């Protein structure tokens, strides 16, 4: 069974380490915040100018001056800090953010990522994505392995306009966890019940399979906080 979006987020949450500063992109990455493991403290960075992002506010407690990078109303946690946009990208550029999680339309076996523009469609802009991918120490991409037509999104070379080059370290898709190596996508884990053959068939880029590939394990009830 392919993973749900929530399970992709849950699997990525296991990559978090205590003390990490983390930037979560819009979409599946945002859901990672719901699965932060017990005993792991991370600080969420929102590039519009906040460290220490908390959950959504309770109804009636929304504050128009307090939003995240997706323009959603949010809250802060104790120990949070506000800052301006130049400083925010200063901390990103200087490599202070330990982990960036973002979505992608395509990823290449070299670690290139395309996630901002589809030729012929209205272009909304790259927002902070190009800055994040150009500077982040560790980038994990959360994505579907194939597009709705069934075509692979993990490719030898990206066809869409790039957001960044040779920057992605790991991909967590609905089918697999893969690490980007000099030789291509190295398969680390597969979704429960998904065969290596299926992953191979749906991976257009070079896939490296070494030894037994374990299935991802999910607790019966997620540690949903």
């Amino acid at each position, binding site marked *: 069974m392919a993973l749900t979006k929530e399970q992709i987020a849950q699997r990525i949450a296991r990559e978090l380490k205590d003390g990490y500063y983390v930037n979560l992109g819009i979409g599946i990455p945002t859901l990672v915040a719901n699965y932060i493991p017990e005993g792991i403290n991370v600080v969420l960075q*929102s*590039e*519009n*100018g*906040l460290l220490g992002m908390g*959950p*959504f*506010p*309770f*109804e*009636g*407690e*929304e*504050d*128009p*001056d*307090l*939003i*995240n990078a*997706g*323009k*959603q*109303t*949010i809250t*802060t946690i104790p120990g949070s800090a*506000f*800052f*301006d*946009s*130049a400083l*925010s*990208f200063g901390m*990103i*550029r200087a490599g202070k953010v330990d982990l960036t999680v973002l979505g992608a339309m395509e990823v290449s076996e070299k670690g*290139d990522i395309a996630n901002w523009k589809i030729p012929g469609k*209205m*272009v*909304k*802009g*790259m*927002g*902070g*994505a*190009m*800055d994040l991918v*150009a*500077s982040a120490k560790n980038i994990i991409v959360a994505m579907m392995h194939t597009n709705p037509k069934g075509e692979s999104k993990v490719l030898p070379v990206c066809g869409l*306009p*790039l*957001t*960044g*080059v*040779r920057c992605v370290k790991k991909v967590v898709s609905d089918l697999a966890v893969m690490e980007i190596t000099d030789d291509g996508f190295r398969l680390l884990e597969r979704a429960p019940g998904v065969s290596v053959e299926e992953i191979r068939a749906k991976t257009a880029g070079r896939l490296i399979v070494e030894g037994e590939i374990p299935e991802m394990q999910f607790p019966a009830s997620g540690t949903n906080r």
Partner: protein
Amino acid sequence: MNKVVRTATEAVSDIKDGDVLMLGGFGLCGIPENCIAALVKAGTKQLTCISNNAGVDDFGIGLLLKHKQVRKMISSYVGENAEFERQLLSGELEVELIPQGTLATRCMAAGYGMPAIFTPAGVGTEVAAGKETRNFNGKEYLLEYAFEADFAIVKAWKGDTEGNLIYKETARNFNPTMAMAGKITIAEVEELVPAGSLDPDAIHTPGIFVHRIFQGEVFEKRIEQRTVRKKN
């Protein structure tokens, strides 16, 4: 020296057709809504607007777009605006999309008196087309120039008659960076207080950067994505 003006109309009265404006805000958060309303009323045209976003159809910079007052937008993300899309596709509006950090840092460079910066954002992408690159310690960087803006228009929470500004929460965003970067900086504040009322240690933008200040008449502070959780 008197920096205090009475109204938004007075504050923007010498903005001319064709001027380059920086407008603070992220989404609809921390935007100078009173000055935008005054510009709509003044009918100033052919504006170039440097702003992270372009508002929504009926609020923020979207109002300037609706009245066809904008010639060019320089932004990082413009997705929430149907009128914007229409004008872009029909060729009425020119748009330059640049990475958000590059946008902020090009404002910063202007405010810090530096002509240009080097950034890795956009290396190897179409953003790098035609730009000078340089390798530092084995990594490629793009040369990006400081913006030149005739006016920076910002919104702060509190300000004093000396032009000192304090912002609130994430409504800070581009405001302090742009406040430093305009040839003339106009600040609209929710509360204007006499000099000496604000703690000098708490000032985000020192008054030297601010040429005009006024207390905004109305702050609608519209929320773009109201997101809540249920109480148990």
